[in-house]
């Protein structure tokens, strides 16, 4: 093909990508600019259209707000703990149950069921499950152990939420690991068996290293989703008791809708925006460098 013919083709590709670019400019580009302007402005619901520039007051307000740091710490701890628990459990189940699932794939459908239910609904369901009068968990605890816990009280509410999140999303890790485990060529197992390798040696020295990239990706995805958690926490505990279970998403939501502190909410959004993009691009950069090194 000559250059003259290629030219209109490039333009046609540009044309094909235009709708999505325009869509992103309107629905993400514009909000990003509004975020930046409002974060350095004095603004309330009454003066929404005439923000007055006020420097970095909003950022100072967020930075010195202990609730912001409490929410950041909650999000970080929650994301890390649930990611590790989900991936640990998922890895064990994927490998231990794979002989069963290989032959009967409908077993996987049963295990995947929680992934199809809205996290908000699952959160509401736990309000029933843990309810002190109509909930089965306190009931069975009373019946068999003669005592129950206050699952959503101070001290225990964080761990209740961790269990709720872990039980719903372990299937996600399980599914990814099962697929990765199945993708290991069977020749590897046969060859190592010929060489007399024990099965736990094969697991530790061959199979787990082969699955490592998937494990890293799953940890990362689950950390991110745990870090930005909103739905199930919001319907289960609100942010209480005493703001102890407010994630960063809930902090921003409440600053805006409950306190009307628009400037603070927007400044917190900008901080989160900058941090997440920096981390994501950093990770992309590392990933592409490593790919390059292997080539």
């Amino acid at each position, binding site marked *: 093909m000559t250059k003259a013919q290629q030219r209109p*083709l*490039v333009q*046609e590709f*540009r044309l*094909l*990508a235009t*709708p*999505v*670019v325009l*869509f992103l400019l309107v*629905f*993400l580009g*514009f*909000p990003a600019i509004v975020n930046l302007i*409002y974060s350095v402005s004095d603004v309330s619901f009454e003066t*929404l259209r005439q923000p007055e520039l006020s420097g970095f007051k909003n950022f100072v307000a967020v930075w010195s707000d202990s609730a912001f740091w409490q929410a950041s710490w909650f999000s970080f701890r929650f994301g890390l703990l649930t990611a590790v628990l989900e991936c640990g459990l998922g890895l064990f189940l994927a490998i*231990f*149950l794979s*002989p*069963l699932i290989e032959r009967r794939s409908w*077993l*996987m*459908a049963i*295990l*995947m*069921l929680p992934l*199809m*239910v*809205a*996290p908000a*609904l*699952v959160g*509401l*369901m*736990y309000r*029933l*499950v843990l309810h002190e*009068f*109509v*909930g*089965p968990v306190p009931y069975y605890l009373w019946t068999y152990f003669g005592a129950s816990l206050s699952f959503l009280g101070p001290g225990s509410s964080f761990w209740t939420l961790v269990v709720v999140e872990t*039980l719903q999303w372990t*299937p996600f890790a399980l*599914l*990814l690991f099962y*697929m990765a485990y199945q993708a290991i060529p069977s020749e590897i197992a046969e060859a190592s068996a010929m060489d007399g390798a024990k099965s736990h040696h094969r697991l530790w020295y061959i199979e787990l290293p082969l699955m490592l*990239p998937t494990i890293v*990706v*799953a940890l990362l995805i689950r950390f991110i989703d745990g870090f*930005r958690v*909103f*739905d199930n926490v919001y319907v289960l505990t609100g942010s209480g008791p005493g703001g102890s279970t407010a994630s960063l*998403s809930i902090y*921003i*939501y409440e600053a805006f809708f409950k306190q009307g502190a628009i400037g603070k909410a*927007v400044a917190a959004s900008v901080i989160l*925006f900058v941090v*997440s993009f920096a981390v*994501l*691009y950093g990770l992309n950069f590392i990933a592409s460098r490593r790919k390059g090194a292997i080539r």
Partner: protein
Amino acid sequence: MITALRWLVFAIAAFAMNFPILVTLSTSFKSARELSTNPGLWVQSPTLDNYLAVFQVSDRLNIFLYLFNSLSVALIGTVLAVALALPAAYAIARGRLGERTLLPLIVNLRAVPLIIFAIPLYMMFQWLALLDTRLGLGLILTIVNLPLALVILVNAIRDLPSELDEAALMDGASRTQILFRVIAPVCRPAIVTSLIFGFITAWNEFLFGLMLTTSKAVPITVGASFFFAASGGGVQWGVASAVMIVGALPPVLLGLIMYRQISGSMTAGAVKG
């Protein structure tokens, strides 16, 4: 012996992970009287009264409206996302356009806490009179669905042999014609997968439904919580359970029927994304 142990572990895991669904299902069949005496899993005298109550429309609660809203916003958010992603995916995969800018930007959206765009979008929707409309919520769900749809479609098109395009180019077809006449039909499985996955994600979305709707466009995930505040005498747990089962059913059924496609796309989105 080891097989028995595997079955035991499977049973415990399946029971624990599906426990809230089982409890809700069982509670939805209990009468108000049984609820106060029997909090256990087993239903002694099952009744459909709770479901009948759920489908009773009152001036405060209207489950048909919530279900219809969820259906409409999920359809808008899914179809629009695929319609935007398909041409872009073709330009990225074949024209190598934006491979280092547009693609990572959109894929990273999957990992960004979307709350950071929520407040300006709320203001923008106020100006555009899109608050509490199905179209408005559908547009937001398009953003939510865009990353995975794009990843799935880019991967699908990359896997196609480029001879397919070249043969059509020789015949004098334009790129747009090739996309719709050659590529789209071959990519149908990938398109269907992104539609199913997007529908489930959109149906289950809660945060933007909570923020951007108040009455007319409330989706079922938000509407379900209205039933918890219903009536003066505390929560009617039987009715609340029936609402949750009804609200969870569409994505669960879709997921169970299509779980092979979904498991494939989850892995694709995770590993290559």
